[in-house]
Each structure stands twice: as C-alpha cells, then as structure tokens.
C-alpha cells in the first residue's frame, strides 16, 4: 500500500531520525517504520512525539545538526505543523515530509482531497504530487537528493491520496539498496549546529537583511526546478523510471488539454486514452511538482492547446481551485493563451471516476469560453 511505499522510501533513503505522530490514514507509516527500526532493518532513531507540531520541531532539530530526517502526517496533523513548516524553510533544512492528502475537518473526515497540503502552499516547501505507489517510493529518494543540495536546502512534501493510494496495494519495484546508496550518498551538511564550530541560527533579523534572506529562498526554489528534473532524469537512467516536473500524455496535437494531479490524473489518463481511440484530440498534463511551479513547461505545453481544463480536488474558499488559479496565472501574459476552464471535484473523498471526467470534458466542450470562474462537478443540489 502507499503507506508502505512511503516507508520503504524512507528506509532506502537511509533516513536517520524519524519524528512522527499517528493520524488516520497515515498510521501504517508510523507502525511500519517502528517495526523496521525495531527489527534493525532501518538504522534510525524514531522519536515517538506527542503531537505533529513537536514532530516537525524534532525533525528540524535533528536536521539542524546534520542528520537526515523524515516525518509523515495528514490533514489536521499537517495543519498543526504549519508553523514549523515555515520554520524548516527559513532554517533551510532538508526535512522530508510524507503527507497523506486528507480533507480537513470539521466535520471529521478521513477521505481524500488536497486542501491540507495546498494550505501549506506558501510556506516554501517543495511539493510533489504522486500518482502511484511506485512514484511515492521513488520520489522520497529523489526528494532527499534535491533538498540536500546546497543550492536548494529546502524541505519537501511528498503527497499521496488518502486511501486511493495510501491504502491501495499496487505492485511496486523495490530499488536495490546499493544502487540507491550510489544515487543518494549520505548527507553532507555544511551549515549545522556543531560545537566544534559554534554558530547561532535564526537570530532576530532586521528589515535591512530579512528581505535578502527571503530572496535566497526563492532563488533556491527556482534552482530546485532544474535540479528536480536532473534528479528525475538520473533516476530514470539508474532505475529505469524517469520523472519530471510535469508528465505529458498525448499532448503533441491535443486541442483540449486536461490538467490534473495525483490519482485524478491517473483516472483522467484512461479517459484521454479512450477519447484518443475515438480520434478526439485530447491530452493530459499531470502536474507532479507544484512548488516550485513549473512555469516554463506549463506555458510551453498549454500554449499549443485550444482549450485547457483544470481539475482541482481542492478549493480556496472565496476564490477558485488552486491548480486552476496557478495555471491561469502562469498563462496570463503569454502571447498564446487558450481559455482555461476550472472544475472542482472529489472533495472529501467523493469518487472521481471516468464518468466524472467525461462530465467535465463534455461541459467544457459545450462552451467556447468559461462562463463562470468555478464549476462544481457532481454536486447534489
């Protein structure tokens, strides 16, 4: 299941300190990692913290001294960590966080949507949205490689859908540990808490310096864009599975492109394939990396389309779906910018089926331009 894939990723990456607090549907991660540590299959200290806020704080502390650290959470837990996500970014620490996309309460829910991870959008974490358990496992390893680069030094969040991925079993290839070690050597932290070379970190910073420190973070985000691609390509060469910032499917002569993420993209792919068989010119762009936003690649692929559909399994209340906003904003100043339709689907784990996707496609087909900013699919009035 996805939770195990996430755990195996952390194991293969030889994470050294884990600090995590259980929350449905992440609990198999903490349980499995505890077992791996207890059985000596993972040489790591697992701090059984008493809350998610402490989980991230402890992960940050361990990372600050140079250890490779990992945590995992979901929804309310991620929300509770929020302050410390900012901290990990500002402290420039490559903590890797697995987040099981679960809808926010109240009311209580355990099923999937993206509001929890997207509420962290502006913190500065690199964000990877995974479509399969294989990708989850592979991405943990790549994420460490990218985040630990001195040009990056930013934490990253690996997102997988609650139940659809976390609790669904898929066949996953386990990379060879020796090969992973070659791909991902031990962490070499240049800036660390070290009594042999004492520094103090995070001191009060006045307006005449804070601005530049933030600029550095943004520059690192932009450098991460290229490094994520590089890491994905090298992964492809060594392990046979190639990854990038986005994944294009049947886009070459596509007239309408559907933009989606995570498992919704997987469902959309089958619909696109069916439509292609019927000769209809549809394509799919799966956004894998949301932060840093892949401006160039998105602009390049969408500029050629006549219509763009963005499916969001999230909502920014008072505005629109978040992937939709981001894609629209990226295209705004482009010389060729097709009309972009935004749809909200699947919140709180409501199923997004091929029929749902077709409903979206048909709606967009019936209009030349969007007639509304936002359209809720599958709503029961």
């Amino acid at each position, binding site marked *: 299941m996805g939770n195990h894939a996430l755990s195996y990723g952390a194991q293969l990456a030889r994470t*050294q*300190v884990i*600090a995590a607090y259980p929350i449905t549907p992440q609990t198999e991660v903490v349980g499995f990692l505890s077992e791996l540590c207890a059985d000596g299959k993972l*040489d*790591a*200290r697992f*701090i*059984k*913290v*008493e*809350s998610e*806020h*402490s*989980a991230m*704080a*402890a*992960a*940050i*502390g*361990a*990372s*600050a*001294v*140079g*250890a490779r*650290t990992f945590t995992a959470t979901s929804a309310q837990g991620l929300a509770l960590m929020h*302050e*410390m996500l900012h*901290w990990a970014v500002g402290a420039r620490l490559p903590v890797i966080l697995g987040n099981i996309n679960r809808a926010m309460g109240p009311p209580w829910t355990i099923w999937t949507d993206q509001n929890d991870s997207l509420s962290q959008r502006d913190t500065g974490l690199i964000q990877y949205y995974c479509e399969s358990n294989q990708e989850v496992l592979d991405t943990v390893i790549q994420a460490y490689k990218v985040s630990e680069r001195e040009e990056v030094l930013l934490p990253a969040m690996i997102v997988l859908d609650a139940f659809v991925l976390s609790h669904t079993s898929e066949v996953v290839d386990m990379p060879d540990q020796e090969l992973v070690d070659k791909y991902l050597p031990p962490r070499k932290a240049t800036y660390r*808490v*070290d*009594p042999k*070379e*004492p*520094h*103090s*970190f*995070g*001191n*009060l*910073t*006045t307006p005449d*310096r804070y601005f530049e420190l933030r600029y550095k973070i943004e520059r690192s985000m932009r450098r991460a864009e290229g490094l994520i691609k590089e890491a994905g390509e090298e992964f492809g060469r060594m392990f046979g599975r190639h990854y990038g910032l986005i994944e294009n499917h049947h886009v070459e002569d596509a007239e309408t492109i559907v933009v989606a993420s995570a498992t919704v993209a997987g469902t959309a792919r089958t619909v696109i394939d069916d439509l292609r068989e019927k000769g209809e010119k549809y394509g799919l762009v799966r956004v894998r990396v949301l932060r840093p936003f892949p401006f160039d690649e998105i602009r390049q692929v969408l500029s050629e389309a006549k219509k763009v559909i963005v499916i969001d399994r999230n909502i920014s209340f008072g505005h629109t779906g978040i992937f939709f906003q981001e894609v629209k904003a990226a295209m705004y100043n482009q010389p060729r910018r097709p009309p972009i339709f935004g749809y909200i689907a699947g919140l709180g784990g409501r199923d997004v089926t091929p029929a749902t996707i077709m409903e979206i496609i048909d709606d967009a087909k019936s209009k030349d331009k969007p007639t509304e900013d936002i359209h809720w699919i599958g709503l029961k009035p």
Partner: protein
Amino acid sequence: MKLTIPEQELMVSGHLACQGCGATLAMRYALKALGPNTVYSIPACCWSVIDGPFPYSTLKVPIFHTAFETAASAASGIKAGLEMIGNDETNVVAWAGDGGTFDIGIQALSGAAERNDNFMYICYDNEAYMNTGIQRSSATPWRSWTTTTPEKHPKETPKKDMIGIMAAHRIPYVATCSVAYPEDMVKKVKKAKEIKGCKFIHVFAPCPTGWRTAPENCIKLARLAVKTRLFPLYEIFNGVDYKISMKVPKPVPVEEYLKPQGRFRHLTEEDVKQIQRNVDYEWDRLMKMAEGCEGEEGGGGK
C-alpha cells in the same frame, strides 16, 4: 583569591540584556557548568533577543533558535540527530523562559520528559512573559502586577508548581536554583550533566525591568526569595526522592522580599499576610515530602 565557580566565560559582553538581568546571570552560570561541548535550543524568550541580531551571537556555543512551543521538542530532535551522526558527548540543553516552559511549551516538555529524552531543560523564571512586555504567565505569583493582570483584575491563581509537574514525570533529576547562589547552580548543572535521561532545572532569575525594581536589586531579591523560603532550593531524584539544598532555619519575613518590588506595591497588608501563610504552608509541605527521603541514594521506588 580562590574562585568559587569556574573562571571560563562562554558568554561575551555586548549582549542586549537590560541592566541587572537575572536571565543573563543564569546563562553565565549554566555555561560555566556545561562547558564548550554544548548546544542549545532556545525558543522565543528574552534570550532570543539578548543573543543579538543576525549576524551575531553572544555565546561561544551553538544555539538553534526555535519556535516558542518547541524548546523541548527541538532538543529531542537535536539529541537524536547528534547520536545518529555519532556524537554521544555533546551536552544538549533546552533553554527557555517561564512562558515557553510553564505555558506554551509545556506539551513538548511533558512529551520529552515522558520519553525520558536525554537532554537538560533549564527554565529561567522571571515570572512573566517579559520579552513581549511583561504579560502574565502561569509562573506569575498570586496578585503580582503585570500588564495583563492589572490591579483591578489581579491574578487570583497561585504560581504553577512546575517542579511538581516535572517530578510527576519521574525523570531522573529535577532541581531548583537561584542566581544568588551560583555555586549551588553550577554544582547542580554539573550533576545533571552526568545523568542520563531527562533533567529539569528551574532557575529563579529576577527581572528588574518587569518586577519594577532597581537593576542593582537583582541578586538581593534572588537571595531573599530563598531566605524567605518563598523559593526553596532542592533536588528531586527520580521524581520521589527529595534533597533539600538549603535549610533556611531562620526565615526572613516575606514582606522584605516584596517591599522593593513595584509589581507588589499595590498589595494590602492582608495580601502580604496571605502570601506569608502560603509560603509557610508550602515550606512545611515540602519538608514533609522530604522527610525520610534518601535523596540521591534513593532508588526512586524501583
């Protein structure tokens, strides 16, 4: 001339503390006991500012400044991280004010104590949120003035018994110190340094600025707090074995301690009598708990 505490300074002059700051004295003494092979996690508190702005620091040991609630959780992580990179020697110390310990940081501290994570937690207690401009904390004494406990809306609850709370976690070592007794503090910090497990040290550190008293009174008040029995000096081993550090056979009336402080200026005669009664009660209670205890030799009920 023979010095009663180590000579080495690991804190430099030029820091931003107020004149007569008890928190800096506490830090100075702690560092003398800990030595250079030490790392600190420091949450939001006066020391976040005393340390100086980026790109400077005031200590010759590394500090990881961390969020308000996280002194203990960051320290847990720091300790685990150091162990995993092969360093079992460095002292890991969480250094926090009363706010970050008694209030917003208590969850993380309780968690770390329950796990018996191997680090030392030192709380310097100036009895209010001083860094943000003197607001009440749960360490603020009964009816003490702060900006959020003005005369007409006083704090009617007593100072939180943090030592009792930490002892209840049955951690190996818990102790109280006062900046007026640096030899005692250095001895206790050195002792704690050698113990494996979670250690908690509560340091009474007057804040002349927040207590509305002249800077020169800092040590005097820290001494009076002990000599009036208001702030007893003692250790608790394994949560159950008490060892009183200073007996105080002839206590000074608590009024002597309250008089120089502007934050107590509004107290009535009856208030002062009540405070004296509380001091006497708490002292007797402490003595009873300490009776028959084996102190360091006690097995902690195991």
